[in-house]
């Protein structure tokens, strides 16, 4: 056989093997599991909503490779609650779905679900703890968690080589050859994406800044959702018109109880479709328009949303003074019910005249950043366009979570220059209060007690029934590590001075104490 023929046979053999391997991969991919579509409760707790971001073997290796970023108690350190799948926290999901596109995967990926943010552990005065579904996690420090992950992904040793490698990951887990290959591919793609993202996110912080409010300005129990939306979804730099000031639309992680009563969701009433609301929440933690369109992921979004439609808060842990509550009811009727409505005593809610309406910023007087951040007028149009594209996953070419333009504001349905007045089921459990979590307890919100200028926030903060919330301390400690300074932009605790301003001569503390007792019955 001539060298030329040998070369040709070799070329055919090589090409044939490559082609067979590629076709085998396509066939195998059709046998890999897809994330299941769950019932509403399970979908809320652990159903994939498209947020998978790291292979399970890589994730379990992180504490071993980066103990400074992911210490042995990393779950508690970042405010996660134990009790989720695979030894991970509540609200984590482990599914065979690839990040970004949601395609089947031979290796399980870790993602987040609705429950990670919307499940809280109440520390009652008697020492008991209670997991409360639907309540925003007051300890969750999600921004530093993801920043720690970014630091780990981009970390390089003295020679400039990545620290997180497939061989280091494989030391912590048993992996098949295919799993190693997929994890290796993920590692390259994810690291590259994070490096590309430095143009918008800047280089990562260092581990010692993760609990410092000077660097991590969001803090526990809050998110800066439109920061993420702007940088990750719209692919824009997070700066203001002045070129240097970021969006400061901090949002307390809200309770998601009785969502059917909310005609317009979000603090600024920008979305009327609850499924779209949930899809946008998923987008802020890594889901994509593409993977949200996969039938089972879209189904989980809808199912988890359905779970919140009728989810009810728990009872207040101690019985309020009935006589005081009865007296407080009258003050509530005159000072609060118009905007928030009133519980009817049978589990229902009597709607207030202004309930569901936007209260203009000059009237409500609370921090304006959440409603006026630079990209607030841009998002509705951009997001509508994103979900309206010809969508190839569905044979009707319509994204399963697409909504009419009238479902988002600003737009044909009006503007959203203010904060929405909503029903307040479980009112005494919803703290810290205001959209930016600037008031630590309900007593301070109604100006029965002073609103602190600074107070420490963090982990394991005991609920105080006397003030219906946490008792503020101006001194941070190992657990309450994050000092909330209400003098900083985005953190103002001003406004919502109902029934009376703190300095109003008509202010009646006894009546306010009665009002507090009544609110504790919600």
């Amino acid at each position: 056989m001539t060298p030329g023929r040998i070369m040709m046979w070799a070329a055919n053999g090589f090409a044939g093997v490559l082609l067979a391997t590629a076709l085998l991969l396509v066939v195998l991919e059709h046998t890999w599991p897809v994330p299941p579509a769950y019932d509403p409760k399970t979908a809320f707790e652990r159903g994939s909503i498209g947020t998978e971001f790291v292979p399970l073997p890589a994730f379990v290796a992180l504490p071993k490779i980066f103990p400074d970023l992911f210490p042995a108690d990393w779950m508690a350190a970042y405010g996660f609650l134990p009790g989720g799948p695979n030894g991970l926290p509540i609200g984590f999901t482990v599914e065979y779905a690839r990040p970004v596109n949601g395609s089947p995967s031979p290796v399980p990926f870790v993602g987040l679900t609705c429950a990670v943010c919307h499940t809280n552990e109440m520390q009652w005065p008697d020492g008991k703890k209670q997991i409360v579904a639907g309540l925003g996690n007051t300890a969750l420090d999600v921004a530093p968690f993801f920043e720690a992950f970014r630091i780990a992904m981009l970390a390089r040793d003295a020679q400039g080589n990545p620290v997180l490698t497939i061989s280091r990951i494989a030391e912590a887990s048993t992996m098949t050859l295919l799993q190693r290959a997929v994890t290796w591919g993920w590692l390259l793609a994810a690291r590259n994406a994070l490096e590309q993202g430095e143009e918008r996110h800047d280089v990562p912080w260092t581990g010692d800044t993760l609990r410092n409010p000077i660097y991590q300005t969001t803090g526990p129990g809050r998110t800066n959702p439109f920061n993420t939306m702007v940088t990750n979804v719209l692919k824009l730099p997070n700066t203001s018109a002045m070129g240097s000031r970021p969006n400061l639309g901090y949002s307390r992680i809200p309770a998601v109880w009785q969502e059917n009563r909310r005609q317009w969701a979000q603090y600024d009433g920008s979305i009327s479709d609850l499924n779209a609301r949930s899809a946008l929440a998923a987008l802020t933690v890594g889901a994509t328009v593409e993977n949200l369109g996969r039938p089972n992921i879209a189904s989980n979004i809808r199912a988890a949303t359905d779970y919140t439609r009728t989810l009810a808060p728990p009872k207040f842990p101690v019985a309020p003074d009935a006589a005081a509550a009865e007296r407080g009811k009258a003050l509530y009727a005159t000072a609060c019910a118009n905007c928030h409505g009133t519980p009817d005593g049978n589990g229902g809610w009597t709607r207030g005249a202004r309930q569901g309406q936007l209260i203009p910023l000059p009237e409500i007087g609370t921090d304006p950043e959440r409603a006026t951040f630079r990209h607030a007028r841009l998002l509705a149009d951009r997001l509508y366009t994103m979900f309206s594209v010809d969508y190839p996953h569905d044979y009707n070419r319509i994204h399963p979570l697409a909504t009419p333009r009238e479902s988002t504001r600003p737009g044909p349905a009006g503007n959203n220059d203010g904060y929405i007045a909503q029903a307040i089921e479980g009112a005494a459990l919803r703290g810290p209060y205001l959209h930016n979590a600037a008031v630590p307890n309900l007593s301070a919100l109604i100006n029965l007690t002073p609103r602190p200028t600074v107070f420490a926030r963090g982990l394991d903060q005991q609920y105080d029934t006397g003030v219906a919330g946490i008792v503020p301390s101006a001194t941070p400690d190992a657990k309450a590590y994050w000092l909330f300074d209400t003098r900083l932009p985005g953190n103002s605790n001003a406004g919502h001075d109902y029934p009376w301003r703190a300095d109003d001569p008509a202010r009646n503390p006894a009546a306010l104490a009665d009002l507090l007792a009544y609110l504790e019955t919600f």
Partner: protein
Amino acid sequence: MDAGFNRPQILLPTFTAVFVPFALLMVAGIAYAEVTNFPEHFRIAATIWIVWPFAAISLGLRAAGRSGSVALLTWTVGYAAFLLHQILAVTDMFGGSFSAVFARQGVTAALNFALAIWWAVDLYLMWSETAPPPRWVHLQRLGLAIALPIAMFVASVILKDGFVRYLAIASIVLALLIWWLAKPRAAVV
């Protein structure tokens, strides 16, 4: 158009010249699809991209009367890509449901499936030819050589835009170029 084959002998250089580019393009298409946000969609797209140049080469050669092994092999691998395109479209885009395919595509789906079957029959006849084929074989071959490019032109150039449109136009130019270069010329006196 030379519609008859009398199956040519497949030599290793010819096979290599067709198969290696085909295999590498298929692998590249599948690999490219895997790193996109729509792997299933781009796998389907990539397979139809591969059909275009190979079908164009075959049709160009046959139009010039060169029904040799290159024309047969390119026609064959073009069909392999087309068949994979159809299979992936049904399984990945329509969940394996033919009723979903017809609900979405209607008559177009019927035409697509008919073309796939017709092309398979044509290939079978080509590969099994041992003698000059009867007239009906010539006619069906001519019909397919007209119907398929028209259907693909409508699908890729009129109904779609972007890369596939430009690829389709480039492939048509390629076919015309091959026909012009390969056609027999009268001897110059």
